[in-house]
């Protein structure tokens, strides 16, 4: 399973989302869009918006820390 989290350091829901994935033992790539301009561009492209966090699980895009949606994709 391929998981990417687009986040910033100041966004509380980003921290919660990452902590949640860690608690579930799901490894992920963390992209800090405040320092990674390419990452920001990628996030805009895949999600069509600029709010963080954006969680991409095997090409499925979740905007915001949405636990039920994350669970549905990681428990597939």
């Amino acid at each position, binding site marked *: 399973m391929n998981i990417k989290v687009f986040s*910033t350091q*100041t966004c*509380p829901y980003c921290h*919660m989302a990452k902590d949640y994935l860690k608690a579930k033992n799901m490894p992920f790539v963390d992209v800090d869009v405040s320092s990674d301009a390419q990452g920001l561009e990628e996030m805009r492209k895949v999600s069509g918006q*600029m709010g963080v966090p954006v969680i991409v699980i095997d090409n499925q895009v979740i905007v915001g820390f*949405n636990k039920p949606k994350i669970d549905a994709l990681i428990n597939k």
Partner: protein
Amino acid sequence: MKIYDLIILGGGPAGITAAIYAARKKLDFLVITLDIGGQAAWSGDIENYTGYQFITGPDLALKFQEHIDAFGIAVKMPERAVDIYKEGKLIKINTDLAEYCAKTAIIATGKRPRPLNVPGEAEFKNKGVTYCATCDGPVYKGKNVLVVGGGNSALDAAIQLAKICPQVHVVNMTEALTADSVMIEALNSFPNVTVHNDTMVKTIYGEAFAAGAILKKYGKEEDIRVEGVFIEIGLIPNSNFVSRLQTNEHNEIVVDCNNNTSIPGIFAAGDVTNVAEKQIIIACGEGSKACLAATAYLVRNKW
């Protein structure tokens, strides 16, 4: 349908504190919320919450999450209440996803940013238009931005943004900024900030993302090219779904000193109510009071 002892609406300081008390009272209860932390999660620095000389809003929200996890509290999230009413002795709650039934309820849904209500605002929400500089500010690093508002939260946002953006416009509808003078002085120390007093935002425009705004000052229009529009013009209570409860002129739920609303069995706590002063620590105290009042109500009604 399952009948809970208590359903708590909201996961901010008031709702979480009510939940912790409910867990310790061993009530059969549920928390329904859009997020954990509420407004506290997007506060900047907190220096008036007893026990913490300093904690950031995001860190306090994480502490709330840990506290919930420690008690194994059931949380439905993200889920939004759309109606609450009493049917016989029971409280019915409808959300965007399901229907619930409980003997008591605590409404602790807090407040949300006040929208500007101009064309383009809804269209470009999260596509340039944002209400949280703490959360989204860093995403706009290196871009020109606009902050709407002239109070402390607007200036706080403008100061944060002035450190990372080439040009920050502050649009304020009154003749002078209304923030504390210490904030105004701090703002004025940045050469890349332009304050537009007596000015309104007429529209926000763009294509896939916001690209600018049309400002209006004394009947004259000005086009400002910005990629980010931060709206910081105060807060409104999340009370649209409580049409059956008594509210005041600010749409806050009216409660007495024991957190009773106008419907027995439905309690309310924190910023969504008419409680004097909206503070994290006050919301926590109100949440605790509301849970104790709900517990006493359960005992009185001999369920």
